[in-house]
């Protein structure tokens, strides 16, 4: 009887691993990917800070990071995954995430300016005002862009969930 049964882990992929080994393999791959993604981000940020006027040094890292991030975002969206703490998006979450994005970008800009010596002329009122204006404008643009993007994604996420729910109701 057992001979006729499909063995766990066997199938079209012809994998010789059982399910525990496959699970371990996926866990290791996932951790390695997260590590690579984080290191890529750090590498990109450090190079932007150190070589701000030389995009050739960090454009490739930035491109790779964007490709990975877009792939992850699209894959999460297609799988119907939102955040680990909530199943559905909310305006509060989007606002909070947008504020965090704006603060992070501002903090990064402050570090970048400090390293490149742009703060040296800060004693002069004109310079101080232009730097503050730049940071404020940048924060507002990032906040608005993040909020619009998150609102759009939230809208389509809710729509997709409703369609999935409707399909399940039809099956019942």
């Amino acid at each position, binding site marked *: *009887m*057992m001979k006729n*049964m499909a*063995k*766990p*882990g*066997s199938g079209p992929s012809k994998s010789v691993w*059982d*399910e*525990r*080994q496959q*699970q371990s393999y996926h866990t290791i791959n996932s951790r390695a990917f997260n590590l690579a993604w984080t290191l890529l981000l750090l590498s990109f940020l450090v190079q932007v800070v150190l070589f701000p006027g030389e995009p050739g040094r960090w454009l490739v890292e930035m491109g790779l990071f964007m490709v990975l991030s877009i792939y992850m975002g699209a894959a999460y969206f297609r799988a119907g995954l939102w955040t680990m703490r909530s199943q559905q998006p909310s305006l509060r979450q989007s606002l909070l995430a947008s504020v965090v994005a704006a603060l992070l970008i501002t903090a990064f800009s402050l570090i970048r300016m400090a390293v490149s010596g742009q703060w040296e002329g800060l004693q002069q009122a004109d310079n101080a005002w232009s730097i503050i204006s730049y940071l404020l404008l940048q924060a507002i643009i990032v906040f608005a862009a993040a909020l619009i993007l998150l609102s759009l994604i939230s809208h389509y996420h809710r729509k997709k969930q409703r369609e999935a729910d409707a399909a399940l109701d039809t099956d019942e």
Partner: protein
Amino acid sequence: MHPVSRTKVARVQLGLTQQELADQIGVTRQTIGLIEQGKFNPSLALCIQIAKGLGKTLDELFWEEET
């Protein structure tokens, strides 16, 4: 009795080694060992294979009675 222990007891009662049970259901010996120790949660498909391999029902091997 804890389900992991029940799996081990059922296997020992049949006089099977971990390797023999593993070969019978198509997994590695380590996987059987980890299931018996409760360190790996098998899928339903694998639970069924183990239950069939040991001549038991899923309830007998894996159902936890509430105390």
